[in-house]
């Protein structure tokens, strides 16, 4: 009974609460608000700290609002913080991150969606075996694959290029994305597929004309997951590229981990928030679509 048709999945399904100020309601909202405080606390602390000057931070209270708001840490994090001898902050990494992000997201999602489609509608002998291997692959710590990947990229002549990094992101994004697409396409009524087959439609025709137009929610989920994962990636970005194409996270690491005397917590926090801004905006903006997509893709298991 886990089949879910995406269109029907928005409305709450729980029992209807009765009165506005019943005891149950007070407990319910009370709990939710308490839990929200726990979730919001770090964000609050990061924002407040990033708006304080260093003297105020040394005085101690991390939860207090700044007595004197300063945007200097943000300016410094974006355009002045030093990593090694380059003192141009995070700004140099932003463009690189975008250049890495877009092709990686496009390629990985394209491939995973076709995989998922083939796995759910065009099973062939061994397809489940490959899929199982792929899922086990999701559990392998990336770091142990560093050297094999280095050898692979060297043989392909892609080491050090953005193309190589795109390939790596595609490979490591494949397990979870394929799982999502496979589950989603499996939940689309088989009758549609069979009818198209009877009409003589082939593999690609069915994919582009029937499956793709119905797959918007799961594409949203895939895009969100990939944007987050690739944008936040440090390890692959630093190993499979070179300084001219380092993503923003490498600059973040350099700013946060190179302590110049005392730790400049305010600059670190501003840098952290700036780096996290892109995925954060996507999360807050996509809200309902994400749940809808998850409902469609993850639930079938």
């Amino acid at each position, binding site marked *: 009974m886990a089949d879910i048709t995406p269109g029907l999945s928005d409305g709450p399904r*729980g029992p209807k609460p009765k009165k506005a100020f019943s005891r149950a309601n007070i407990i319910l909202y009370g709990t939710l608000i308490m839990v929200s405080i726990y979730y919001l606390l770090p964000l609050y602390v990061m924002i407040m700290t990033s708006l304080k000057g260093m003297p105020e931070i040394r005085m101690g209270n991390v939860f207090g609002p700044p007595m004197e708001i300063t945007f200097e840490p943000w300016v410094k994090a974006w355009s002045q913080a030093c990593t090694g001898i380059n003192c141009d902050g995070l700004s140099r990494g932003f463009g690189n991150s975008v250049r890495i992000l877009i092709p990686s997201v496009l390629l990985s999602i394209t491939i995973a969606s076709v995989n998922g489609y083939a796995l759910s509608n065009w099973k062939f002998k061994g397809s489940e075996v490959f899929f199982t291997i792929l899922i086990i692959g999701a559990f392998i710590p990336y770091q*142990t694959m560093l050297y094999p990947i280095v050898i692979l990229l060297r043989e392909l002549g892609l080491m050090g290029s953005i193309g190589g990094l795109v390939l790596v992101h595609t490979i490591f994004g494949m397990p979870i994305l394929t799982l999502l697409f496979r589950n989603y396409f499996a939940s689309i009524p088989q009758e549609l597929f069979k009818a198209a087959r009877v009409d003589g439609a082939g593999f690609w025709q069915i994919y582009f004309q029937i499956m793709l137009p119905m797959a918007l929610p799961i594409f949203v989920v895939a895009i969100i997951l990939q944007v987050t994962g690739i944008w936040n990636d440090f390890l692959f970005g630093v190993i499979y590229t070179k300084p001219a194409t380092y993503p923003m996270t490498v600059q973040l690491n350099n700013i946060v981990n190179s302590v110049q005397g005392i730790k400049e917590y305010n600059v670190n926090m501003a840098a952290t928030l700036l*780096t996290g801004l892109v995925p954060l905006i996507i999360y807050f903006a996509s809200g309902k679509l*994400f749940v809808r997509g998850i409902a469609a893709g*993850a639930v079938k298991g």
Partner: protein
Amino acid sequence: MTVISDPLMHPTKRPRRLFKNLMAKLASIPMILTAVVVFVGGTAWTVLYSFTGSRMLPKTNWVGLDQYERLWSSDRWIISITNLGIYGSCSLVLTLVIGFSLAACLDRKIRFESAFRSIFLYPFALSFVVTGLAWQWILNPDFGLQSVVRGWGWESFVFNPLNDANTVIYGLLIAGLWQGTGLIMCIMLAGLRGIDEDIWKATRVDGIGTIKTYIVVIIPMMRPVFITSLVLIASGIIKLYDLVVAQTGGGPGLASEVPAKYVIEYMFRAQNLGQGFAASTMMLCSVVVIMIPWAYLEFGGRKRG
């Protein structure tokens, strides 16, 4: 949940099986290559070299099981797997419980549902490095929670998990749960939305209480949702590394070391690839042991249905 074992039901005229379903096979080439070349190939390569004395560069100077003997006699490895055991079991149980409870709360036709949902989900957008730093800062005894509570007049208040070897793992847990529960909550919520309204009506008619309904009726119906969640949580736990590095660096002492960190540090800092590969092979074995029952449940169960 029916499976089309072979969509080409009509008898094909082509004699060779290889060409049956050709386009699907061609389209699956990227997946097959990834599975075979990267995951199987890379893993086999790792396992193979775990029987060598490779140092900085992979070499085929075979040493048998030496690396494994050393691994299991190392204090640090034992501490690492114990820590992962504690963190993993707490994280698994708590993530499922918290994720489900929050989803159940949100599913009760509340106001501001999307605001709450965004609040619970946003930490997932942040990397573990950011998560670790933020919580390191909040748990810092000189600036964070402890000093604030002391400032309120409770002078003897002690909350310093990150600098105490006995509690540091729970300090990691606080941060890990913060980052990971939102996604599970979302998945659970999606699962709850998939439950038919009629079920609720029926249980109300039968006079079954709300909480009992969740436990007895709803959770068993959400088995696939729990399995997906389990895969996501478990794969995150076993890869636990960035959070530790950012939040505690494995300290104090070796108190918050984890296996992935052991692997990486022995591969790169100690330049003992063989030792790192032996440790990652052990991690892989545990994954396979966990995954085989899962694969059986998934695919074995399907065939019956």
